[in-house]
């Protein structure tokens, strides 16, 4: 067993949290915007744009169909253009975000759809515009569901981030592959898994607490 295990895992954990954190920071606003647009342009939405809706839906579905490991490699040119490098933590954030936004957008869409139509109607009857309906009714009413969805998404990104390690993305996955798998250092593998389990538990716990706190139903 290596003496450097603790600093190794600690650095990798920080890299993982950075990847996941930054990816989620970008995903949440983009996903909410895209999810709201999916709902509003849909057949029962206020904007009702069948063509735009079909196109958005198609793009989102394609984004969700591509296996992450393929996406990771396929977007290398884009990654280079955006962040100037194709390896390391920063580079991994680009494919992570690309994979996560469509997933979260669908979660947002379904969370907003669950808001009772009567609440939207009450705001419309008071003279609310579509924009006011989104900001004052749909998003606040769906907030607990959005938090729960963001929790699921964050845990998904955590899993993806471990895969990003396979192409030199850094983080816990990278460590597990290079030390645990390629050098047969089983203790490293176990340590990364333990950290990941703790992270998942912590994220889920925090998400549940927050969703419950915000829910007044």
């Amino acid at each position, binding site marked *: 067993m290596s003496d450097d295990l603790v600093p190794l895992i600690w650095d990798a954990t920080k890299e993982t949290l950075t990847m996941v954190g930054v990816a989620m920071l970008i995903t949440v606003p983009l996903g909410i915007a895209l999810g709201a647009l999916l709902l509003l342009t849909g057949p029962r939405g206020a904007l009702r744009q069948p063509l735009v809706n079909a196109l958005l839906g198609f793009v989102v579905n394609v984004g969700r169909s591509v296996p992450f490991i393929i996406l990771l490699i396929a977007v290398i040119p884009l990654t280079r253009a955006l962040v100037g490098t194709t390896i390391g933590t920063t580079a991994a954030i680009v494919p992570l975000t690309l994979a996560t936004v469509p997933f979260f957008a669908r979660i947002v869409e379904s969370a907003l759809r669950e808001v009772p139509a009567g609440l939207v*109607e009450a705001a419309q*009857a*008071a*003279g609310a515009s579509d924009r*006011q309906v989104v900001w004052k009714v749909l998003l606040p*009413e769906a907030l607990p569901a959005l938090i729960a969805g963001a929790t699921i998404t964050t845990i998904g990104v955590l899993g993806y981030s471990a895969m990003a390690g396979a192409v030199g993305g850094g983080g816990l996955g990278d460590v597990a592959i290079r030390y645990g798998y390629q050098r047969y250092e089983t203790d490293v593998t176990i340590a990364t898994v333990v950290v990941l389990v703790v992270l998942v538990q912590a994220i889920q716990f925090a998400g549940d607490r927050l969703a419950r706190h915000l829910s007044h139903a």
Partner: protein
Amino acid sequence: MPDELAIRTRDLRKTYRRSGADVVALAGVDLEIPRGQVFGVLGTSGAGKSTLIRCLNGLERPTAGSVEVDGVELTGLGRAALRAQRRRIGMVFQHFNLLNSRTALGNVALPLEIVGAGRRERRERALRLLDLVDLADQAGAHPSQLSGGQKQRVGIARALAAEPSVLLSDEATSALDEQTAESVLALLRDLNRRLGLTIVLVTHQLSVVKQMCDAAVLLRDGVALDAGSLAEAAARPASPLGRVLLPALPAELPGDGDGDAARAASGAARAAGAADGRELLDLVVTGPAARAAVAPLDADADEPIRAALRSAGVAWELLAAVYEPVGGTPVARLRIALDGSAEARAAARSALAAAGADPQAPRSAEEAIA
């Protein structure tokens, strides 16, 4: 539109397309609702009540016809102008439709946020409105912490926040128990009187209309069968609205003997034209005379029904009497049996008609529904 009208619709039509077929919800409705009235919209489910009320604030766009509220024609308005107009029309919903993410205060403040009122003004106005509906102490409560009646009070306060001139109520008391419904109705009536608010009440509950409304429309299959003031409708019990407001007395009443036989006898007597016989009559007396009409024990010589019967010289018997206020007007309904010759009975009928009691042969329950 005349100035005293709050709402006027002309040939209002709405057709939905549902799974390839056209469904007619409104088939040409003409309504005139005077300012300051409580106006009932009555009808069974599917009659078009909700569609009608939703056309009044543009939540539904009519297929054809016109809707004027406060002198503004809604059907021609663009989206922004329609939104501005909606702020002059409050709406209360059956299931309250309060935002769970907001406190009672926040819910009441929502329409004020929509019109862009400042934070201080929103808070002050919302607090004042909560006070108006007797919920000042619940300002910080979320809807889940309130009872049904309290939720509807918050809903009413919210509907009034933007100071509308018209309040639309879509089955506002249907989800509440009887006592709570009473108190919510009393609040609406009070607001109508104090603020001069015009209220349109959609309901399937007859008691609500009788208790609350000055006038009403009866919808069936998207058509206004009858509309007018309740006092007038009650005085014409054979009119569609009259029939709904004053359901037929039971065809067979205790003391009636064999109801069917009696009615057959009366029909036969009338057909024969001359024979002696027994004849049943339903009478309606509205207004101040109604009270005296149902007071058989201290039978007053000046009471018009008894005076008319006495002048006709027939024997008669009071079988049943019902007394209730309809739209603030006292209404008495009586069933009497006349015994005597055909001429005497005819004289009694015309004397009763002259006394304004609208004598009619009893309607059977089936007739009343038709």
